[in-house]
Structures are given as C-alpha cells and as structure tokens.
C-alpha cells in the first residue's frame, strides 16, 4: 500500500547506507526532498545516478552524505562542472563507480527482468572496464570468440524522484519519462514527490493510464508543489538557470557551500 506522507516523513524513511536511485536533471529531480534528506542526517548513501547527476548529487556530496557514487557524469550543465563532486574526487573522498549511461540503464533493466546481468555491446578497450572489476567480459554463448560485457543487476533500495501527479491509490503519472519506471521496477520501493495529488484514479482513463507508474512499485508519496525547483519539470515549469548558476558560484568554496545549504535546511555545518 502506498502511503501519502509529509516531505519530512518521506525523507526520514531513507536510512543511512541506503542505495538510492536518482534521476537525471531533465527527468524529475525530487529537489524538495533533498533538504529534509540532508537535514535528517542519513549518511553513507550509495547513490546511483540514472544515468547522470547534477545539483542534487552535488549537494548530497558537499554535505558529506555520499559514500559510493555510481554515475555516467555529474555536471551542472550550462552552469559548468559540479564543484562539490570535483572537490570530493580530487580529495579521494568518494568511492567512485564511473559508468556510461547505457551500462547503468542495462544494470537497472537486469533488475527489472529479475536476472543477474545484462549483456552490453561497447566498453571493450576502455578504462571504464578496467576500473569496474564488477563488470565482466564474457563470451556470447551463441558465437564462440564474440566478446561482450556482462553488466550486473543494479537493485537500489529506493528510487526517489519528482513527478507531476499522483492519485490517492499511489499511481504516479510519469508520461514519457519512462526511465522513472525503470528505476522503480529495479528498486525495492519508490518514494515520489508530486506537484498535485488528484482524487480520480489515473488508471480509469486509458489515455492517462498509458503514462502511469502503478502504485504497486510506490511506497510513499509526498505533496511538493514546485518540488523540482530549481530544476524544471517537463510540461510544468522551466529550469531556474539563475539559481543553478548562483549555486555553482557559491559551491566553489566549502564555506559558501555551507551558507547555501543552511538557507534551505536551517542547520549549520554539514561537511
């Protein structure tokens, strides 16, 4: 059964050490849940970026919440590199699982299918393969000598994302952002923040049903209007590029990063 809870309660259900799947900038980032998550004090998170990360990841890293980071990239887009990420990498403060987008998506697809791995073309000859001993070069059983990489299933504890709408049964409208469904299938449960909660079931109409992630996969929902801000939400509102640029500027030093965070979390130092 999906529970409808407050943002704080939703964040409080993410324990230290959780393996957390988080979407890319354009896909519905649960920014409003980021502040209470940081305030809750959960540490040692294992973050899986699906398949890249931005502001949310950089905040969690800067606040010292991340132990393991699996990602294909971390960037603030137009605003440049992600300062806390770059700093943590240089200082060796992160267990880094560098990936490539389709490998993360393949690992999640393996979890979706309930199989231990998915084969994937590419990768051979790259240093990604060298630094990821958890990826294996294997032989195509249908063609001797044909080498292909096996990507192990990625099974996060929780997928956390933001979407436009949910109904009271816990169904979530994700539209064509189906990587959110992929994250949810692969994860033990999903926590979703939404712009609106509507009374009528999203499954009652075949047109809206086509864009629904069923409640079956959703553990908790929190109402969070404008909840992707400063990121935008497709079909709802654009990205606040000025705010992201402001963050990029402030995150360049640890002191001003802390000041930025404090504004949203109400508490002092985090690093």
């Amino acid at each position, binding site marked *: 059964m999906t529970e409808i809870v407050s943002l704080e309660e939703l964040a409080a259900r993410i324990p230290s050490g959780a393996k957390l799947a988080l979407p890319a900038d354009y896909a519905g980032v649960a920014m409003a849940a980021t502040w209470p998550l940081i305030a809750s004090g959960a540490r040692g998170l294992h973050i899986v970026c*699906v398949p890249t990360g931005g502001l949310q990841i950089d905040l969690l890293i800067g606040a010292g919440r991340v132990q393991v980071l699996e990602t294909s990239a971390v960037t603030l*887009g137009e605003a440049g590199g*992600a300062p806390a990420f770059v700093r943590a990498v240089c200082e060796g403060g992160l267990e880094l699982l*560098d990936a490539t987008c389709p490998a993360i998506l393949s690992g999640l697809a393996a979890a979706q299918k309930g199989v231990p791995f998915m084969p994937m073309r590419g990768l051979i000859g*790259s240093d990604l393969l060298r630094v990821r001993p958890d990826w294996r070069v294997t032989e195509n059983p249908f063609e001797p000598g044909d080498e292909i990489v096996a990507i192990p299933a990625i099974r996060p504890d929780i997928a956390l994302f933001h979407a436009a709408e949910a109904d009271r049964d816990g169904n979530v409208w994700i539209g064509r952002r189906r990587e959110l469904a992929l994250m949810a299938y692969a994860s033990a449960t999903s926590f979703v923040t939404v712009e609106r909660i509507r009374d009528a079931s999203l499954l009652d109409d075949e047109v809206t049903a086509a864009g629904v992630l069923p409640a079956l996969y959703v553990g908790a929902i929190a109402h969070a209007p404008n909840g992707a801000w400063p990121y935008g939400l497709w079909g709802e509102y654009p990205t606040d590029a000025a705010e992201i640029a402001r963050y990029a500027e402030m995150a360049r030093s640890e002191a001003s990063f802390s000041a930025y965070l404090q504004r949203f979390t109400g508490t002092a130092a985090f690093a």
Partner: protein
Amino acid sequence: MRPASDRERLIATVAELLAGVHHVAVGASSPIPAAGAMLRRAVDAKRGEAPVRISILGSARHNFFTNGSSELFDCAAQGRIDAFFLGGGQIDGQGDINLVGAGDYPRSAPRWPGSFGSGLLYYVVPRVILFREEHSPRVLVEKVDFISAAGASPPSVRRPGGPYALLTSLALFRFDKARRCFVLTGVAPGHDTDEVRDRTGFGFDVAEDLGPIPEPSPEALALIRDRVRGELAETYPQFAETLRDE
C-alpha cells in the same frame, strides 16, 4: 552577402560530414552539431531528397523518443542511428577519447563530468564525428589519461561504429580505421599544415588531396542565416541570438 564566420563554416562542414545520413542524434549542449544537422536537412529538402531525422536530446520539438533515456541507446544499438557527435577533454591519435579527467584515476585533476553514453555510442553508431572547437596539444594528446571509449577494437569485438572524422576550429581529419590514425583532410582558411602540426599533440597522416576547408556555399549560408537559425532558436535561444550578430 556577409562572408562566413568561423562558426558558420563549422556548421557547413558538419552538414557535409552528414551527407547520406538518415538519422542523426545530437547531445544536449551541442549547438554547432545541431545546426549542422539542421543545415543538412534544409539542403536535402531543397534538393527534394528525404529529410534527415534529427533527434536532439533535451529538445521538446526534436524529441521523438517516448521510452525515456534508454531509447537513444537502444535505438543506436539497433542500428537506427547513423551519426552522433562526441567531444572529449582529451582525444588521442588512436581515436581514444577521455571524458573523465586528467592525471591518475580516480583522483583526476581536473575531473570532467564523466563518460556519458560514449561507452556504447562510440561503438555502435557508424559515423561518430568528434567535435571540439579548441585545437591544442592539451586537448589533442598523444595518449589520453583515461579511455572513456576506445577509437578502435580488436577483430574479436563486433563493432559497427566508431570515429569517422575529427573537426576543430583549425582542421578536419578523417579517421583511418584500418591504420587506427587520423588523416588531415582540410585546414581552416588562413592557417596551414605546419600550424596544425604545432597545435596537435599526436602524429597524423596528411591526405593527398589536402586543401583548405571550403567556405560554405551561398546557398548554405543563406539557409544557415534564415531557416536554420529559426529552428535553432527553440532549443538554443542564446546560440541562435549570437549567431545573428556574427
């Protein structure tokens, strides 16, 4: 007509490199490749040929995908994408690219964002165009510090895709797959081969028919300044604006 700017020439060169392509995908922050693809489409339309399909990641109007992030990669692996663009913090003479960082991994300095989709796309898209405006020994190195994706693979690896050309503000190279090296085919007007050698960290061959990178035709230039700039404005409003001022 005002002569072509450097960026307009890059756009026209990209359009030439896309001749015969049916479906080209363009990354989210790649206005010059996107403009080149739009010019290709405009030229083909004028000639009555089937228009190239353009998928621009992050664009609403040019997003034909409905299956989330996976669809670009699935589509490429299915062989439905003929051309794609990649860059790199470092690109070396074997066509290896580095999007991760300089120095010893994992404590790279500088650290760049990461490999994005290169680990698959470089291997399965037949015509990958390496595009980087900066042409310097810092970017074009003898050997990359980290291989995000390899320029060539041993025969045991099924690889329909790989590097096709390398385009910078200074030069155009094609990639020789058999010999795993770049071949200089064009130099930007006002520059010469010696300068290309000085500013390139890796060795390369020189094509027999080496010449200056051609100026855009008046037809192409007119299309860039009218139709292409209008189409660009939806996805790259700032870029479309600065293009007007050149």
